[in-house]
């Protein structure tokens, strides 16, 4: 497994979920998503069912990656915030630490100023959890670690079964 693998345990996941749940309420948002920079959805809160979350995660990551490329072209490290204004709904995208992207979808029941304010606070809290996840992952890389992966005994048959053979 590459050292970049992201492993989330229940406790960490619940903490992340709690933070974005609170953000969704405090910012009067419609939906809040926490996405990984590689395009995987990590957590979601609000009216989640109204949106194709998987496509949203992948397109957001693509968007952030492309904007990142643009930033580097003009000599910036990154653009930490992207804002897309629609007729009814708006999209507020911000970077959290090294690997997270926070997506807030809101309408006229909220405002850009409120969303920015709440996102700032939530980002700090999310960052702390991501740091903990990273520290734990580092520890598990240690050869003396007692962590045992549940995938240590995957067989060829397991894989064949995935493909219905």
């Amino acid at each position, binding site marked *: *497994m*590459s050292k*970049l*693998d*992201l*492993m*989330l*345990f*229940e406790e*960490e*996941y*619940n903490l992340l979920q709690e933070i974005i749940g609170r953000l969704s309420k405090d910012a009067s948002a419609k939906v809040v998503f926490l996405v*990984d*920079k*590689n*395009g*995987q959805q*990590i957590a979601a809160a609000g009216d989640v069912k109204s949106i*194709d979350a*998987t*496509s949203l995660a*992948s*397109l957001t990551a*693509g968007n952030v*990656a*492309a904007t*990142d*490329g643009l930033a580097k072209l003009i000599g910036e490290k990154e653009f930490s915030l992207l804002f897309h204004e629609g007729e009814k709904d708006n999209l507020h995208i911000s970077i959290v630490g090294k690997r997270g992207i926070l997506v807030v979808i809101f309408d006229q029941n909220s405002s850009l100023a409120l969303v920015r304010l709440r996102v700032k606070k939530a980002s700090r809290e999310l960052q702390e959890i991501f740091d903990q996840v990273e520290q734990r992952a580092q520890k598990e890389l240690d050869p003396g670690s007692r962590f045992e*992966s*549940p*995938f*240590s*005994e*995957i067989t*060829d048959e*397991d*894989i064949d*079964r*995935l*493909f*219905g053979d």
Partner: protein
Amino acid sequence: MTFINYASREINCKIVYYGPGLCGKTTNIQWIYEQANPEKRGKLVSLATETDRTLFFDFLPLDMGTIKGFKVRFHLYTVPGQVFYDASRKLILRGCDGIIFVADSQRARMEANIESIANLATNLRENGFDIRTIPYVLQFNKRDMPSAASMTDLERLLRFRNEPMVEAVANQGIGVIDTLKAAARQILMELQRA
């Protein structure tokens, strides 16, 4: 980068289809989309030009079933093959778990295949991966074309690490699933080695 969520018991893997322009990367993914059980596939997202050339990427999420009690989900991506979209190709490789290289079997495209593999090696390196060790499958597409090179020639020119090879005619679905399966096998076996 495999994302393992112990809370929702899910494993997410990212597989990228790479190869020269018009080799059939999008055709592979489209065929999988059309054949997959609608309950198990997500939406096929295609960021393409008006003439259906891939502009940024195609994306297809697939639920594969469970392994050791974890739901396995593959995220399939294609890159734009045209040479001048290199910056986009590099971005899409970010955090990938495995590569499917789709080679165009036609003799006239051999140079484009070789260039694309070299480009893949560079872009992987810039993302912190090594083309010699990352899960990797070589698909020889368009085997039905009259101008297709022999398998011996293709292997000699394009195979460099004893990787699995699959003969394919992607627009008829031949070899498409076998290719994906070969990639899945390597990626999941990689998890085992953790």
